[in-house]
C-alpha cells in the first residue's frame, strides 16, 4: 500500500493538466492525502510487480516514516501558505510531491536515480518563479551532471556486484569478498553525484544563484523540503550501501571545507536570504559528516531540527525580503509591527544556534556526545567553533531585525499560524524531548537488521 504515496500524486498530476483552474484543488487534496496517509503506513518491504528482491521494492522503516511525516507535512504547509504562487505551478508541485515520496521510499538504486531526476526537474521549474533564467539554467546543468555521475557510480557498482537492490548490496559485497578499496571508485562517484543536490562543496555554486532572490514558495521548498529529502536519502545510502571505510580522507576534507565555507560566508554576508542559504550549506555539510562517521541517530535528529527551523526562517526571511528588500540594514526593526512573525523567527534562529530550552540544544548535545564518543579531537573543536560563528551572526541578525524603525507590514494569517505552530513544536521538543528520542531510537537496529539480514 505504500506505493499509493507515489501513484496517487502521479495520477493527479496527469489529470491536473486537463484544466488549469482546478489544478490547485487537486494539489491541495493530494498534499493532504499524502500527509494523512503516511500515518497509516505499516513498516515492511512493499514489492512492485510481485517479483520479490528482483523487482523494485519500497522499504518502509522507521527512518522512512520519520522522513514521510516531516516532509509531507511541511510540503502541505508550504503550499498552503503561498496560495497565489502555487496556483500557477500546481502540476509541477504535484510531481515534486511524487518525487519526494519516491526518494524517501525507494529501495532500488536506479529507481533512486529516476526519482532524483523527477525531483530535480520539478525543482528547476520551481526556480523559474524567481524570473532568473540564468541561475535556473545553472541549477539544471549542475543537477544533471550530479545525477549523471551518480548513474556512472551506480553502473560500475552493478557490474561489480550484480544487483541494484539496496538491501542485498551489502550481503552480495560480503559474498563476493569485494574489499572497500575495490568499491572506492563507485562509492566516490555516487558520493560526489549526490553531493551536488545535497549542496556539498565541489558543485554547490548553484545554491547561491537559486536561493539568493528566491520567492517564499520556491525558496522554502528548495532550502528545507528538498534539502531534507536529499539528506535523508544520503543518510540511507551512506549507512546501508556506501560503506566507505571510516570516511576516506578526501571525503572528510570536502565535508569540513563545506561546513567552514558555509558558515564563514554566512557570517560575512549582509543580506538576509544569503545568510540563510549559506548557513543551510554549512548544516548540510555537518549532517553528511555525521552520516559518514556512522552517527545515524544524531544525523536524523539534526535533519529534523534543520528542516523545521529552515522552514520557519526561510518563509519569514523570504517574505520580509520580498516586502522590503534584501539588505539587513533596510529590514532594521522589521519585527516592530509584525511581532508574531518575529517571535517565530527568533525561536527558529535560537534553535539553530543550539541554545538551551530549544530542540537545537538537544540535537547539538547528542551530536557532541556522539563525536566525543568516537574520540577524535579535531572535529568536535571545529563543530564548536562553527556553532559559535552561527550564534554570532544569528544574534547579530536578530538584534538588527528587532530594534529600529520600519513600516514593513506582512498580512498573511495562514503563514503566521503555521510558523508559530512550528516554533511551538521546536520549543516543546526542546523541553520535553523524550518522545523524539523514542521515535528515533529504533532506526539504529533496523538499519543493522537490513545490513545483516537483508530481509526486513
Amino acid at each position, binding site marked *: 500500500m505504500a506505493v499509493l504515496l507515489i501513484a496517487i500524486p502521479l495520477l493527479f498530476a496527469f489529470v491536473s493538466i486537463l484544466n488549469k483552474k482546478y489544478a490547485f484543488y487537486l494539489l491541495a487534496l493530494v498534499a493532504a492525502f499524502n500527509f494523512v496517509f503516511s500515518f497509516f503506513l505499516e513498516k515492511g518491504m512493499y514489492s512492485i510487480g510481485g517479483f520479490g528482491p528482483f523487482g523494485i521494492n519500497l522499504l518502509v522503516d522507521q527512518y522512512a516514516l520519520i522522513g514521510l511525516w516531516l516532509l509531507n507535512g511541511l510540503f502541505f504547509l508550504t503550499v498552503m501558505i503561498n496560495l497565489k504562487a502555487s496556483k500557477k505551478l500546481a502540476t509541477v508541485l504535484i510531481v515534486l510531491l511524487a518525487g519526494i515520496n519516491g526518494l524517501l521510499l525507494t529501495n532500488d538504486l536506479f529507481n533512486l536515480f529516476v526519482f532524483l531526476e523527477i525531483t530535480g526537474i520539478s525543482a528547476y521549474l520551481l526556480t523559474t518563479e524567481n524570473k532568473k533564467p540564468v541561475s535556473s539554467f545553472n541549477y539544471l546543468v549542475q543537477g544533471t551532471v550530479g545525477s549523471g555521475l551518480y548513474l556512472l557510480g551506480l553502473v560500475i557498482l552493478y557490474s561489480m556486484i550484480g544487483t541494484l537492490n539496496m538491501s542485498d548490496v551489502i550481503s552480495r559485497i560480503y559474498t563476493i569478498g569485494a574489499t572497500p578499496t575495490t568499491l572506492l*571508485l563507485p562509492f566516490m562517484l555516487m558520493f560526489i553525484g549526490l553531493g551536488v543536490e545535497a549542496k556539498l562543496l565541489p558543485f554547490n555554486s548553484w545554491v547561491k544563484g537559486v536561493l539568493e532572490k528566491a520567492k517564499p514558495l520556491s525558496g522554502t521548498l528548495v532550502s528545507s523540503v528538498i534539502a531534507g529529502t536529499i539528506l535523508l536519502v544520503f543518510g540511507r545510502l551512506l549507512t546501508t550501501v556506501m560503506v566507505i571505510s571510516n570516511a576516506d580522507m578526501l571525503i572528510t576534507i570536502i565535508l569540513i571545507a563545506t561546513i567552514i565555507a558555509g558558515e564563514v560566508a554566512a557570517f560575512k554576508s549582509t543580506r538576509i536570504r544569503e545568510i540563510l542559504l549559506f548557513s543551510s550549506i554549512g548544516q548540510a555539510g555537518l549532517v553528511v559528516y555525521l552520516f559518514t562517521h556512522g552517527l545515524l541517530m544524531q544525523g536524523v535528529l539534526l535533519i529534523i531540527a534543520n528542516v523545521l527551523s529552515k522552514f520557519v526562517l526561510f518563509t519569514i526571511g523570504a517574505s520580509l525580503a520580498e516586502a522590503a528588500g534584501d539588505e539587513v540594514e533596510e529590514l532594521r526593526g522589521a519585527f516592530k509591527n509584525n511581532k508574531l512573525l518575529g517571535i517565530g523567527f527568533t525561536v527558529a534562529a535560537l534553535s539553530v544556534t543550539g541554545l538551551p530550552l530549544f530542540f537545537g540544544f538537544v540535537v547539538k548535545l547528542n551530536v557532541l556526545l556522539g563525536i566525543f564518543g568516537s574520540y577524535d579531537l579535531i572535529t568536535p573543536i571545529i563543530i564548536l567553533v562553527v556553532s559559535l560563528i552561527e550564534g554570532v551572526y544569528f544574534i547579530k541578525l536578530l538584534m538588527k531585525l528587532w530594534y529600529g524603525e520600519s513600516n514593513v507590514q506582512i498580512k498573511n494569517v495562514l503563514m503566521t499560524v503555521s510558523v508559530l505552530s512550528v516554533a511551538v513544536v521546536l520549543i516543546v521538543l526542546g523541553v520535553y524531548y523524550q518522545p523524539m528520542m523514542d521515535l528515533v531510537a529504533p532506526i539504529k537496529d533496523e538499519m543493522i537488521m537490513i545490513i545483516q539480514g537483508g530481509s526486513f
Partner: protein
Amino acid sequence: MKKFLALLAVIALGVGIIKTLDNNVSFPKYGEAVIESRVSNFYIKKNVTEENSEVLFGGSDYETGSANFVTSIVANYRSFDTLGEVTVLFISAFGVALLLGSKEQKRLELNFKPNFMLQVGSRALFAIIVMVGLYISIHGHLTPGGGFPGGTIIAASVLLLYLSNDKFRTNIRGFRFMQSITGALYVIIGLVGLFVSGFFLENFLGTGIVGNLFSAGIIPIVYIIIGLKVGSDFSIIIDSFLTKEVSK
C-alpha cells in the same frame, strides 16, 4: 593555452579512471561480464522463484511472455522505472510549455519556404510514418524498440507536417488531452494490478505463448500507452519550440 591545459587534465583524469577500473579485481573486463552472477540471470530464465528452467520460443505461461528480454525488464520486472520515466517526459513537456508558451501563439517565421515537393510528399509520408511508429510500439515485446522510439516516430510525423506547411499548428488541446489520458491509464493499470493481486503494476493478464502478438499480458498494452504518451509529449515540445508569442 589554458583550455589546452584543462583538456590535458581531463584526459589524464579519464585515463586514471580507466586504469583504476582495469586493475580493479572485481570489475569485469570488457566482454567478460558473467551473467550468472548477476540479477539479470533471473530475467533471462524468466523465473524469479526457482533456479534453472529453460525458456523456449514457443513455450507458454512463463512469468512474462515477452520474447524481448529488455522489454520484459522495462515493462514488467522494473515497470516502476518506466512510470517514473514517463513522468520525467511529462514534466519536461509541461515545463517547456510553461517556459515558452503563452496565451496565444503563432507560428514562427522560419527563413525557408517549404517547396512543392515537400508539401505533396509529406501528405503521403505522414500516414506511413505514423504506421511505422504504431508498429514499433505494438511489437515492442517481439522486436527491438518499443514505446519510446515508437512514440517519437509518431511525433516525427507531426514534425513533418509542421515543416511542410508554414501555417500549420496541431490541435494542442487534443495532444494535451491524449497526454493526460494515457498517463492516467498507465497509473490506473498499475492500481488495477494492486487491487487484483496486491502488487502495483502486476501483470494480471495471462502471459500467453512467447512469440505471439497477443502474448505477455499487459506489456503490449503498456507499450501502446507509452507510445501514444511519448508521441503527444514530443508533439507538445515541438509545438512550443516552433511557435512564438503573438506580439501585442
